[in-house]
């Protein structure tokens, strides 16, 4: 590798995947599952979960989608070329990168996991709408499988996002 500074894409991934998804959102989902299982008690968290924690996915998902969409060009070795390089050279260097690394496989795989999370989230919302409007965990216990599925999908997405390289590399 060779970029002297940390690529902006890597900083974004770090903020989204490490700081938020892995270290805040997934642990909160896990805590909620424990709460549904009566393994922990936290009345404040119980009240806040549906209002402020769960909707964070809807707030952040566009950023994750953008992260995936931006990967190919922001982490391409064309970023190591001097500014105002010839167009043909930029195309060539990028094409060689696509040839030597499974760039689009990484993005497609993560895109699939991202879609899984969205599906699980929507299913969860659909089931929540059918429930009585009550935020107590006891009432929501029947929805545990849907919460667990959502949490599992988030974990898979987080693992998938870790696979992307964190440095700009020569193809």
């Amino acid at each position, binding site marked *: 590798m*060779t970029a002297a*500074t940390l690529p902006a894409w890597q900083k974004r991934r770090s903020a989204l995947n490490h700081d938020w998804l892995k270290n805040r959102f997934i642990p909160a989902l896990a805590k909620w599952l424990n709460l549904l299982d009566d393994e922990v008690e936290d009345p404040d968290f119980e009240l806040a979960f549906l209002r402020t924690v769960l909707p964070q996915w809807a707030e952040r998902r566009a950023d994750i989608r953008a992260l995936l969409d931006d990967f190919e060009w922001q982490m391409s070795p064309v970023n190591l070329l001097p500014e105002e390089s010839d167009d043909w050279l930029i195309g060539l260097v*990028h094409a060689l990168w696509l040839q030597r690394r499974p760039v689009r496989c990484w993005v497609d795989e993560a895109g699939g996991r991202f879609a899984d999370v969205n599906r699980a989230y929507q299913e969860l919302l659909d089931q929540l709408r059918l429930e009585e409007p009550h935020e107590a965990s006891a009432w929501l216990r029947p929805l545990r499988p849907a919460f667990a599925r959502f949490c599992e999908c988030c974990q898979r997405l987080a693992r998938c996002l870790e696979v992307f390289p964190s440095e700009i590399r020569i193809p």
Partner: protein
Amino acid sequence: MRTLRYRVADTQNDDYLKDLVEIFDTLGLRTTGRSGNCDIILAHRTTDFLRQAERDSFLRAGGLYVEYTGGGAPWKVLDTGRYYFGSFYELTRRLRQLTPPVTKKALVLVLDFVPRPIELLAAVTLLSQGFLAVQHSAGALDSKDTAIKMALEHMGWPLPADHPGRLLLRDDLAGQLPAVRSAEWWRKVLPDASSADRVRQEWGAAPLRELDELLKTIEERETVDDAAIVAKVYLALVHRLEHES
């Protein structure tokens, strides 16, 4: 030789803990409990860092102390020495360079290394790719030359007929032949003697004859004709860049 001992302080990230235990198992290091003597302590910076007094006393006793974070922090050797900070990714990448039996000196070596920024070497590598691909497209390469064959193979050139990357290629790639043979094209990246010196500096290791020759050609001549030299430079540079990453 004494078996080195380590301790991981991370109560939040089971996956990090698991990775480190796996690496140290492979390297033959033994873990210790909180009170046991050890040679290296690795702690998650935000949650399990050592208090200053404990850290200072451990460092004074000759221990190595690493604080890591899951984010993308650049690797740092902190002023006190033997005190390191960086991303978990970078930490494990460094540890995986070790082979058993691991000595403390070897540990210090991989942790102490702070990479110099490499920019021009990367640019020269990419120009070499462009040069070779254009020469090949124009049918101007000696296909029997070993270095040229190896370089093209490494680049993955030519792209397979159905490769999506082909859409990014200009139809008139072969038409760029006069441009890439012109030293002026290379001089856009290496305009003067000082930039050539910087390339040599970034290369750092024992001088590479082919690199010197290419730099001299770019500096002093009008054309860059010797594809075999460019191929050799390309192979040496990618080897270096791949090992630095």
